[in-house]
């Protein structure tokens, strides 16, 4: 016979379990003690954070802080040394293909095929995500209309401006209706009008389709306008996470930019030119 106390204990424990489960489900991205070495250089060091379903989450930091490395790890492009990551409750290392179904991504450098038309790029994406043909056609039309590229669907992407390419990448990243959209500096190099439009599409999708947004940027004004939560990474470590208003209060700053500079310092980060920068340079020359 169990005493009433014991029964109550069991009930309590179950409730806690239940509560934990709900909490787990709410976190669509869960990163624990993530560490990544490049040789002996520790690019990401014991990083933990989580993102809740439906949030617009800004991942900030100066150049070379570890932002891109973290995004690459989250999107299964890079392996890591220590820690664990789950996306929509699936382990990134154990079930990479399952995880890949859940997210769409807009990379910092373009990844559309410029020698194909906008429509053909979308079409290939639908094959890669094994969408059924008629459904794919409907969605391609829908998302190309959302980013206002439907009239240009049969034009080669090489004729597109930077902003149009970025819009196409966003539409493509949404085609398989992901639960998370990763955006690595989605508005870099774009004029204010285009930036505004791009954020309008993204926020609309966040609201209407309940897509969680995880993005990086150097434009603090954008972050203040759109983000619910932020995390700041510097020299591979998370130095701040939470809401923007708390962060501003803590640092007694009026703007996020002020707070950001207070916490990461005034010094310019001098990065050595990497082979990646050299490639970017070469790309510019090639296009001239």
């Amino acid at each position, binding site marked *: 016979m169990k005493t009433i106390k014991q029964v109550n204990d069991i009930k309590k424990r179950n409730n806690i379990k239940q509560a934990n489960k709900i909490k787990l489900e709410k976190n669509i991205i869960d990163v624990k003690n993530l560490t990544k070495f490049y040789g002996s250089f520790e690019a990401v060091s014991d990083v933990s954070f989580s993102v809740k379903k439906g949030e617009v989450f800004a991942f900030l930091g100066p150049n070379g802080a570890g932002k891109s490395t973290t995004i*690459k790890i989250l*999107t299964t*492009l890079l392996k890591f040394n220590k820690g664990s990551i789950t996306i929509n409750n699936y382990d990134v290392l154990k079930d990479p*293909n399952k995880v890949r179904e859940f997210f769409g991504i807009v990379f910092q450098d373009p990844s559309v095929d410029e020698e*194909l038309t906008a429509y053909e790029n979308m079409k*290939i994406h639908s*094959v890669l995500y094994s969408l059924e043909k008629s459904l794919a056609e409907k969605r391609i039309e829908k998302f190309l209309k959302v980013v206002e590229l439907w009239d240009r669907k049969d034009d080669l992407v090489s004729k597109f401006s930077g902003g149009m390419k970025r819009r196409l990448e966003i539409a493509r990243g949404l085609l398989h209706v992901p639960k998370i959209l990763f955006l690595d500096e989605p508005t870099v190099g774009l004029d204010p009008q285009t930036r505004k439009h791009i954020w309008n599409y993204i926020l609309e999708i966040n609201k209407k389709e309940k897509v969680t947004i995880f993005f990086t940027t150097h434009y603090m004004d954008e972050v203040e306008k759109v983000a619910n939560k932020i995390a700041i990474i510097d020299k591979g470590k998370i130095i701040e996470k939470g809401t923007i208003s708390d962060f501003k209060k803590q640092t007694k700053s009026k703007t996020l930019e002020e707070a950001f500079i207070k916490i990461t310092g005034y010094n310019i980060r001098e990065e050595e030119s990497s*082979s990646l920068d050299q*490639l970017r340079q070469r790309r510019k020359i090639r296009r001239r």
Partner: protein
Amino acid sequence: MGVIYALWQRQLKRFYRQKSRVIGSIAQPLLFLVALGFGFGSIFQEAGRGSYIQFLVPGIIAMSILFSSIFSGIEIIWDKQFGFLKETLVAPVSRLRIMIGRTLGGATIAVLQGLLILIISFAFGFKLNNLALLPLAILFMILTAIVFTALGTAIASRLNDMQGFQLLMNLLIMPLFFLSGALFPLTDLPKAINFIIRINPLTYCVDAIRYFLTSMSSIPIFVSSIVIVSYLIIFVFIGSYLFSRMEI
């Protein structure tokens, strides 16, 4: 199957849309054909070896296939950062299928270029020995293309910058071509050079293609077949292994 077909089709579309690329890709082999064919033709004939054009054309076809297929593999270095490759790597598709799609696409284009050279070479007086053997010659062009696309893929999966690419060009592709019997017959050569020629997969490709186009050959065709297929298996295996482990 859908993914492989889509990736293959993508590369063909890119090929026929870029007319300048098609012209560029056959200009270099044609230059070799004209300069060497007419330049050395009379010496070759005086040495009692018959028509140099007959000898040279299969070598030049193999050369254009070699260049085109290694490049389509090596393009991965570029593609990793600025290209479409990332899009395929984050998709829920096995890397093996992506690699197969890319390899078949690159190989098809290489073979198309080889066939273009063959057609043009008829204008220079090249004659097929036996039309019925042409399909076998094409089969060996396809095998050649797959061997070198896979080799390029294997190398590019491990490289991250374009400097390495220049090095490869000078230390790998050029020696593969010059030391393969594409330009000269494999007789009376110094031992060291002979050794390199014997381990060079292109040697066997050139010889097999030459055999089926002109019936000239210096290696028994079954030996060439076995060597080519062995290299193909090894390179495809290593290529897919490295490609599947590739990080960006």
